[in-house]
């Protein structure tokens, strides 16, 4: 009788946590993590050289950080308005002139800060993993 009751209890707790919710949570957490790295990675790509939006998109896609290009345009404009990026128009052989983004001094400072933060974070995660 006692065993039966505990069995019931277990089944009830199962119904409270359907699989779907768990999956959604994982996706959400992943998305949050990517979101945190997106700005850092964008700045990293731009540190090497001034880039056109398509190049940045290619870089981020190869790092599997963004799914759709539309994500990047609001981000770039925001970073530019925050004074971290600047852009100049460069003539293109195929079509209209393009916006080439580059880091400002503020952007470089932020990138260094983020780099340090990343180092700390990765070392502490590695520590936890050991």
């Amino acid at each position, binding site marked *: 009788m006692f065993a039966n009751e505990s069995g019931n209890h277990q089944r009830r707790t199962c119904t409270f946590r359907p699989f779907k919710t768990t999956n959604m949570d994982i996706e959400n957490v992943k998305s949050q993590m990517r979101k945190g790295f*997106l700005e850092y990675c964008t700045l990293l790509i731009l540190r090497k050289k001034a880039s056109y*939006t398509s190049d940045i998109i290619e870089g981020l896609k190869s790092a599997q950080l*963004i799914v*759709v290009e539309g994500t990047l345009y*609001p981000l770039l*404009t925001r970073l530019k*308005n925050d004074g971290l990026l600047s852009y100049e128009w460069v003539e293109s052989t195929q079509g*209209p002139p393009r916006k080439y983004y580059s880091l400002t001094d503020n952007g470089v400072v932020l990138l260094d800060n983020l780099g340090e933060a990343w180092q700390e974070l990765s070392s502490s995660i590695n520590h936890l993993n050991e």
Partner: protein
Amino acid sequence: MKKTLSVNLGGSVYHIDEDAYQELMDYLQEVKSHLGSDASSAEVLIDIEQRISELFGQWMQGRREVITAGDVQKVISILGRPEQFDNVEGEKAEEAEPEKAAPKSEKWSDERTNYGHRKLYRDGDNAKMGGVCAGLAAYLNVSVVLIRLIWVCMFLFYGTGLLIYIICLIIIPEARTAAQRLEMVGEDVTIDNIEKKVRQEAGKVKDRVDGYVRSNRAHENVRNAGNGFVEAIRVVVKVFFAFIAGAIGLAAFVTVIGLIFALLVLWTGNLHFIQGAWPHEFMPLQQALMNPSSATWMTFGLILAIGIPFIAIFRLLFGRALNMKRTAAWEVWVGFIVWFIGLGLCIFSGLHLLSTFGGFWI
């Protein structure tokens, strides 16, 4: 064969199929409303348009001349739907929320400026039950809480409030279209305002869907239960009104039949049962009524002159409750003209009688 349009997209000209154009317009509109209306979003939109233009340019490159719906879909899959923008970024949605909340608090002061052109509707968006209180609050430009409080007080007086609420629920139409919502809060129904409203509502729908996904559906269920309750009341009241309407209709039918019968009796001269009741001096009038032509015209005239307003009043009172089609303008006109003819018949046949027996009346 398809019609094409030429568009300027990010500084380049493209020929685009009509359906593709529509799809692209819708997409850009979606993006625009997603980004909000600050200065930076205009810039983002230009960037996006430019990117689309560039992609089109790459795909065309002399091989083809016209952009098809397939191309537009490809562009959308590359750039992503606006709701996908946030999948990774997510920040924009949080930023946008205070903006959305702000106009709400300003709403009252804003609306005070153009008072007086409002129409009374039920406000389904801010409804707890049927939206009567919310609609009334919008109409009177006072807080919904106040109206609800008054209504609850009325409930306590032997349920008077309930009866009035049910009547309001049936009589007051719900504001369904954007134009009706604008009328409800007394804003001018212009294209700009409608566009604004539709965009607001699109945002609201999105919020609601987001909220639904995140919440445990408890709130939604309560709402649904509320809707079910309202529906149940509507059905019951509809049956009740149908019953009353049927009774009145039957009574009216009997009256009209009785009237015709009475005139027929007068006309055919079978006057046994009125003979005694009528004063002797009225005999000439009786005889005139028995004259087929004038009595027929009078009968027709009376039926039309009495029947048409009756139908109109009946429809006005019970049309909504019985879910009849709305009276069209031409129906009103036809009814009016026919009624006028009926009135004319009455007057003419009456005058004819008077002229025949003028000596008696004057």
